[in-house]
């Protein structure tokens, strides 16, 4: 691992280091809610997915959903974390219109998942380990709509009681880039596990950012929490501006106060949320409606056996078996769909060449057509067949690019072999034909031949280009090179 230059904020009194910890709320994928049998599906008519438990009618008792627990355990295992076989649910007390019970059922002193680790893949190909403090299960709140009526807020409880995993990191990150890499990696792991869809735009993954600054080598200073930042880009921006603000406060002789702040993406600044002044006084106590959650070790083992190959293992396999670079392997494993496509192309073929085509030509084509890899205009099978046509010298790499363009434009996922036949693109490997083309080019450019022979080596490329042009790009490049070299010397 190479030691990259550390991220620093420079102030009037010198350089400052940024300390970052993240709290991510990840909505659990399940059919029913954490403690009731109401549905979790997104986008239903208001208050149509609400049980009396979710609406906190008196006397209703919560009963935990086994699958939500399983999802939390799977996520814990995916984060290399300790699974606590005994955990406890507590009430977190606060008043808000979309929290009908006046408390959220959460886990405080005894979470279901303890310490773990996550490996960040940095853009320069290095990795960095960040500690996970804990993961606990809790209920989501309902949704408040403040802009539908001049004097009223409207409440929809469909989301109330849906299971969330709160995943808390150690304050191990030191730059906005690392925070971004953390969120992207966590999202990838959750999506591999199928425990959360990781969609930040729709709010199924929400992030609170803890930021403090210090002089390098110092202990921690007071931190601020920036709430509800809803994209990776905004998280990185919020850290940058909040760190700058704190540096200014310290350097002006003030002291950063521990508080909750909000990031305003339009103004590019954070501001204090005074409404949350007393918010940290939640008066937790064990929920008397719920017994401790006790897990059977055999069940945890069973869940472990059912885990898919995770991104780190897959990346290592690509580097080991396919000889890919850390960067390329990291990009290809980011989404399971991409990895599956890549493996289908690479199987039994030149794995590095396959990686180049998937990450280069295919990604560019997907970008251009605005399509995802699941409905790629060219299937993995046909991209593989195109590589085969290159491998057996039916076409050159240059013609392959041309055929690929035709395949993308067709939009019907055509067989590349059919295009090669229909358009007569088969590569010319007949030495006689190539020699004839070379002779013609040399005859037409006698002056350049003389220059080349008197030492102007750079002209070789010019001759290759002319011969290829004369052969409509179909000459076998290796043979063209050989013949030219022989005839020019």
């Amino acid at each position: 691992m190479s030691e990259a230059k550390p991220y620093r904020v420079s102030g009037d009194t010198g350089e400052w280091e940024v300390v970052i910890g993240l709290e991510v709320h990840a909505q659990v994928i399940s059919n029913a809610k954490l403690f009731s049998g109401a549905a979790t599906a997104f986008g239903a008519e208001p208050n149509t997915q609400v049980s009396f438990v979710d609406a906190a009618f008196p006397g209703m008792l919560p009963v935990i959903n086994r699958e939500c627990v399983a999802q939390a355990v799977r996520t814990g295992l995916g984060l290399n974390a300790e699974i606590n076989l005994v955990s406890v649910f507590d009430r977190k007390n606060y008043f808000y219109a979309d929290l009908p019970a006046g408390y959220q059922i959460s886990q405080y002193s005894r979470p279901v998942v303890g310490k773990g680790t996550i490996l960040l893949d940095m853009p320069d190909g290095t990795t960095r380990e960040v500690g996970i403090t804990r993961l606990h299960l809790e209920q989501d709140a309902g949704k408040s709509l403040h802009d539908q009526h001049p004097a009223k807020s409207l409440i929809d409880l469909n989301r109330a009681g849906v299971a969330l995993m709160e995943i808390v990191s150690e304050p191990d990150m030191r730059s906005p880039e690392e925070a971004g890499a953390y969120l992207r990696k966590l999202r990838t792991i959750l999506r591999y596990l199928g425990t959360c869809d990781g969609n930040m735009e729709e709010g199924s993954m929400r992030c609170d950012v803890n930021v403090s600054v210090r002089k390098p080598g110092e202990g921690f200073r007071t931190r601020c929490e920036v709430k509800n930042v809803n994209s990776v880009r905004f998280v990185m921006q919020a850290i940058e501006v909040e760190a700058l603000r704190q540096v200014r406060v310290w350097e002006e002789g003030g002291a950063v106060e521990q508080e909750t702040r909000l990031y305003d993406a339009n103004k590019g600044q954070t501001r204090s949320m005074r409404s949350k002044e007393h918010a940290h006084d939640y008066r937790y106590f064990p929920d008397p409606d719920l017994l401790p959650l006790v897990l059977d070790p055999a069940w945890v083992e069973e869940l472990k056996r059912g885990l898919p190959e995770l991104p780190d293992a897959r990346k290592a396999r690509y580097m080991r078996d396919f000889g890919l670079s850390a960067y390329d392997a990291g990009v290809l494993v980011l989404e399971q769909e991409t990895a599956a496509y890549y493996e289908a192309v690479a199987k039994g073929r030149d794995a590095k060449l396959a990686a180049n085509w998937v990450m280069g030509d295919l990604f560019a084509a997907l970008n251009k057509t605005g399509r995802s890899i699941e409905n790629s205009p060219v299937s993995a099978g046909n991209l593989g067949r195109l590589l085969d046509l290159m491998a057996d010298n039916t076409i050159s790499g240059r013609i392959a690019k041309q055929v690929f363009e035709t395949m993308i434009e067709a939009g019907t996922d055509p067989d590349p072999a059919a295009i090669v036949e229909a358009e007569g693109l088969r590569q010319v490997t007949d030495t006689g034909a190539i020699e004839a083309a070379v002779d013609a080019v040399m005859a037409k450019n006698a002056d350049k031949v003389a220059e080349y022979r008197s030492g102007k080596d750079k002209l070789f490329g010019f001759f290759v280009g002319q011969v290829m042009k004369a052969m409509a790009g179909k000459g076998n490049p290796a043979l063209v090179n050989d013949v030219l070299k022989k005839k020019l010397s």
Partner: protein
Amino acid sequence: MSLDAATVRRIASLARLRVPEDQLPRLGQELNAILGWIEQLNEVNTGGVEPLTGSAALAMRMREDVVNDGAQPEAVLSNAPERIDAFYAVPKVVE
């Protein structure tokens, strides 16, 4: 341990109770009596003893991940002091 008037006021505010200023001392006395009793309980050495959370079963029962509830907006909204369409309506929450 003894609670002062400011702490009692804060606890009342967290619990959304409006307590007239002249009643704070009496409420403080009552809370102090409760805390005194809990302090007595704290004298018992409970090191290494797991908390007792119930008298019968030791572990929580679990439900299967099946949707078998909800789809009853009228029943859910039946006790709402105020509603607009299928939403609960509450005094505007100012952020």
